């Protein structure tokens, strides 16, 4: 079993080749990309220690993204389920409607620092695309967003937003026409334009530096949560932190500050989509988009197609950092079906005022399953990491309504 290092940030627990636990991650990329990613790594290592840059980041998080996102108890749901206390870290309240706002903003800031004027990113659900487009506009960068044609049609509200923000949407029509193809095409674009373009990878995936930037940025969520928990409970209570997993960027941000806690004290639970679940269905380790990771493949090693109603989860791979958390036993992973996520949305929106998108609806489904089996002293916190408006059409198709 892989052992995690205490007091070392999770993103820094790699060897000199970029491997976590000698098994996950690495830099499986074309020679053309080596120098640009090395330059980016140096820049990032400098910036994360640079007070001025950190001040700038915090300024943007506070004034541009709206500051601390709320943390509150879902009293009706808790009463209804009659077990553990259920709390919501409502990251969807951020300006930008999802946790992707953090690393989109940081990527745009890094791009600016690097002197590059172009930024390119991939998107599935459109949340990263929209946030990157917004950040690029704010910082006067030219932005291209790569998106599968299937996702362009099922996440239309976000596509409109991206275009309105002045970014170019590059439709990707190859393969399954979803996130996996968008990431591939975006990486190709980078291989061809790495001299003037910054690559902003939409999740904690890709070569070592890309997943580091992503998880470093989203960790803002757990920094806030820790403070909010202490304010509410006077200490860190016995917790279960439930988060949905696509690539895994929101979970890494939600869990980051709690990695060193004993798992009996703070349990980390990741919820994948049933037919896109490499971590919870014993997938093999494979190399996808530059890194070794748990990934769905066929016997020949070809990357498998996935199926999820949720565009953000429709991805065959997973962050190498989740491979590390799984193999070290620090986090555990499970999955929820489309139907379970829809049912969770139904119940939550009937009882509470939040409107989760399809992605966090998967996490809510696990919360609803677990809560009745637990004691009142147990605290469940769910990261409500995306707003539901983008899935309004899908909810109406599937449920016949979208709550007010």
């Amino acid at each position, binding site marked *: 079993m892989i052992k995690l290092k205490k007091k070392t940030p999770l993103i820094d627990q790699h060897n000199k080749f970029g491997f976590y636990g000698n098994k996950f991650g690495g830099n499986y990329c074309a*020679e053309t*990309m080596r120098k640009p990613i090395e330059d980016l790594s140096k820049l990032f290592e400098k910036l994360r220690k640079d007070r001025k840059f950190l001040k700038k980041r915090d300024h943007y998080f506070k004034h541009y993204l709206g500051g601390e996102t709320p943390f509150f108890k879902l009293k009706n749901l808790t009463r209804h389920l009659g077990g553990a206390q259920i709390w919501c870290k409502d990251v969807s309240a951020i300006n930008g409607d999802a946790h992707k706002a953090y690393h989109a903003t940081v990527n745009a800031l890094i791009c600016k620092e690097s002197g590059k004027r172009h930024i390119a990113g991939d998107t599935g659900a459109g949340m990263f695309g929209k946030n990157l487009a917004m950040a690029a506009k704010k910082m006067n960068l030219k932005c291209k967003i790569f998106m599968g044609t299937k996702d362009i049609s099922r996440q239309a509200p976000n596509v409109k937003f991206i275009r309105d923000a002045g970014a170019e949407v590059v439709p990707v029509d190859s393969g399954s026409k979803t996130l996996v193809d968008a990431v591939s095409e975006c990486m*190709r674009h980078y291989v061809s334009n790495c001299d003037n373009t910054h690559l902003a990878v939409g999740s904690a995936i890709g070569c070592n530096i890309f997943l580091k930037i992503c998880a470093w940025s989203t960790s803002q969520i757990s920094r806030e949560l820790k403070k909010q928990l202490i304010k509410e409970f006077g200490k860190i209570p016995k917790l279960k932190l439930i988060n949905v997993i696509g690539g895994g960027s929101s979970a890494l941000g939600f869990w980051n500050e709690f990695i060193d806690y004993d798992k009996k004290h703070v349990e980390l639970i990741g919820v994948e989509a049933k037919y896109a679940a490499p971590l919870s269905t014993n997938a093999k380790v494979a190399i996808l988009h530059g890194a070794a990771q748990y990934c769905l*493949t066929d016997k020949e*090693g070809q990357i498998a197609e996935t199926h999820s109603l949720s565009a953000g989860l429709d991805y065959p791979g997973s962050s190498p950092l989740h491979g590390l958390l799984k193999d070290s036993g620090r986090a555990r992973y499970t999955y929820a079906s489309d139907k379970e996520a829809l049912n969770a949305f139904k119940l939550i929106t009937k009882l509470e005022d939040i409107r989760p998108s399809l992605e966090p609806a998967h996490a809510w489904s696990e919360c609803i399953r677990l809560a009745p089996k637990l004691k009142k002293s147990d605290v469940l916190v769910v990261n409500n990491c995306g707003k539901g408006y983008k899935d309004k059409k899908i909810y109406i198709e599937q449920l016949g309504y979208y709550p007010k």
Partner: protein
Amino acid sequence: MKNSINNAFRTAKKENRPALISYTVCGDNTKDKSLQILNSISKDLDIAEWGIPHNCPTADGKDIQNSSYRALQNGIRLNDIFKLVQRFKKTKPSKPIILMGYYQTIFNYGDKKFIRKCKESGVDGLIVVDLSFPDNKNFAKLCKRNSICFVQLIAPTTTLKRMKEIIKSSHEMIYMISTISTTGSALKYSIKRIIKNFNIIKKIKPSKNVVIGFGITEKTISNLRSADGLVVGSAICREITRSLKDRQNPVTNVSKLVRKLKNKII
């Protein structure tokens, strides 16, 4: 056939021309057709590169993506590729064949098993697009122990320091990427600049055979003839696509194209 790659370069040099190297995707559009194409063009080739199709090819442009897609649609498997190499080598034992692919295919099959199968079937060299230096050190050693040439790549972005290290650990052939791009896009740099990069590499170690690839077409090939070898890939894959679309025989069309390419560098 030991050192057949070196021999191929020697022959070309004697004829005062660069070696002509083709890239096609094994199994495009069917297993038999891809072998027929290779058999037919091999008389004009010095070295044949065969692509192992992968469905997430992050360094390939549209043309090679299309070829890979067709091959996979028609059910090509890695074991078929080894069998096809064996069949090719049976009739043309001295023609070097290099397999080119992504590391996922090899990783999934197992490094050692993959190299053993390469050796058994007569593969002379390997190019693994996304296994770059220094991560490829062990794999390159494993190749060397089995008399397989591991071809290192050098890009326009490669620094001089890194270039020296790569050349030091390279085998008899080095692949120079002409421009910052995926396969098959137009040359972004002037011919002069590409040749300048080539000369920098050659100066570090003149004995290495340095080939130039990416963006080589009928139009550009003759201007780059001072290289030790030139790789034409996407232009050939594009010709296969066109032939299939027009319901023509890709074997004759591709053979004609390769003959034309050869004539431009004689």
